């Protein structure tokens, strides 16, 4: 199947794969740095990094399926599964943020000791490498995203830009903590870095929840959509014999409409399909970009 992919598609997959591999490598370094430094900022970065890397991996899986024509797998169940995974990750992010805030409180209140200067120095190096890799990944994704047309790439570009800004600030706070000999400065620098990362975590989590929840929970369709269906049924009143059922739902921004009609048994399949196509066209004029199914039965 690879030879069927365009150069642009391959470039996009390479860009995300590259970013993913770097992130996983860095998370390993961050884990070591967090243990050595005893820094709350590093723990916060580790939590954020691990969960966001999980999302990155999911984005790569989705993109690969789209590129390989497995689009039907994205309808209904698979799409909802992806949204569910996103929501679980969002909840994990919020739980992580709560844990980090608790650690910051313990650090500021003196319950926990600040990290060691050597540890902060190591953490500073790790985050410096992270910042460098984030800039490289940003450039790679930016070049691959040129030409538009991929929502996943645009999303990844935004996410990577946020990472660059975030890791830049963390780099600054850890450098201050590493260079300072004043315990108060060290504690506040570490706390500031951790809280900054926390802010990003909470912002990302709520964004994911806002985006994913409406898609997961089917909602009823607005009256305008029902009116549109009625207009179609009225317009094509003589084209069918019986209206059996109308089912509608809304998932996120997409309206799903299913109309079950019965047609005269003497009509050919072609004639029935032609009528159904005309009805769908009428409904699409009114509803716009909706998923429309017209089921037929004979009577």
């Amino acid at each position, binding site marked *: 199947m690879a030879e069927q992919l365009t150069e642009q598609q391959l470039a996009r997959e390479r860009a995300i794969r590259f970013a993913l591999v770097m992130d996983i490598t860095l998370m390993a370094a961050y884990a070591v740095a967090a243990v050595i430094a005893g820094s709350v900022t590093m723990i916060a970065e580790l939590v954020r990094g691990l969960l966001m890397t999980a999302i990155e991996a999911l984005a790569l899986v989705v993109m690969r399926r789209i590129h390989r024509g497995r689009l039907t797998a994205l309808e209904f169940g698979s799409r909802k599964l992806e949204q569910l995974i996103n929501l679980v990750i969002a909840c994990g992010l919020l739980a992580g943020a709560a844990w980090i805030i608790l650690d910051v409180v313990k650090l500021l209140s003196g319950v926990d000791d600040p990290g060691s200067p050597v540890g902060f120095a190591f953490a500073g190096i790790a985050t410096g490498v992270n910042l460098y890799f984030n800039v490289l990944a940003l450039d790679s994704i930016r070049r691959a995203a040129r030409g538009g047309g991929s929502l996943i790439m645009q999303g990844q570009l935004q996410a990577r830009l946020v990472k660059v800004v975030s890791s830049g600030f963390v780099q600054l706070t850890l450098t201050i903590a590493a260079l300072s000999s004043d315990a108060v400065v060290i504690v506040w620098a570490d706390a500031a870095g951790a809280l900054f990362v926390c802010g990003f975590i909470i912002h990302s989590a709520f964004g994911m929840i806002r985006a994913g929840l409406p898609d997961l929970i089917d909602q009823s369709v607005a*009256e305008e959509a029902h009116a549109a269906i009625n207009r179609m049924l009225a317009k094509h009143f003589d084209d069918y014999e019986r209206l059996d059922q109308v089912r509608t739902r809304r998932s996120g921004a997409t309206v799903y409409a299913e109309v079950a009609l019965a047609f005269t048994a003497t009509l050919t399949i072609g004639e029935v399909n032609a009528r159904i196509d005309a009805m769908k066209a009428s409904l699409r004029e009114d509803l716009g970009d909706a998923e429309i199914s017209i089921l037929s039965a004979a009577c």
Partner: protein
Amino acid sequence: MTITEEIHDRTHVLLLAGRLDSATSETLATRIDALVADGKAQLLMDCSGLLYVSSAGLRVLLTGAKKTKAAGGSLSCCALQPMVRQVFELSGFGSFLPVYADRAAALQALA
């Protein structure tokens, strides 16, 4: 919504009062089905007391029109309130559902 019934010659009149929406449309649908099954396929909906009709309510009228037509009869409406008339016009229901100004005109036409 309340449904009061009267019989005028061949025409079975259903006087609708209140709101015809998703909560009450099932009642009307069931009544229409029963009448058609009982051989009473010439139905007139007197809407003088009908204050509101939703899309679900309209769909019951459409389904009723189909069923009465299949049974050799018809479903008509009369005395629409302005708001209900507007809904009928916007939904295009006037194209297949005969609508009369009042009950007298309807009964005369259906006689």
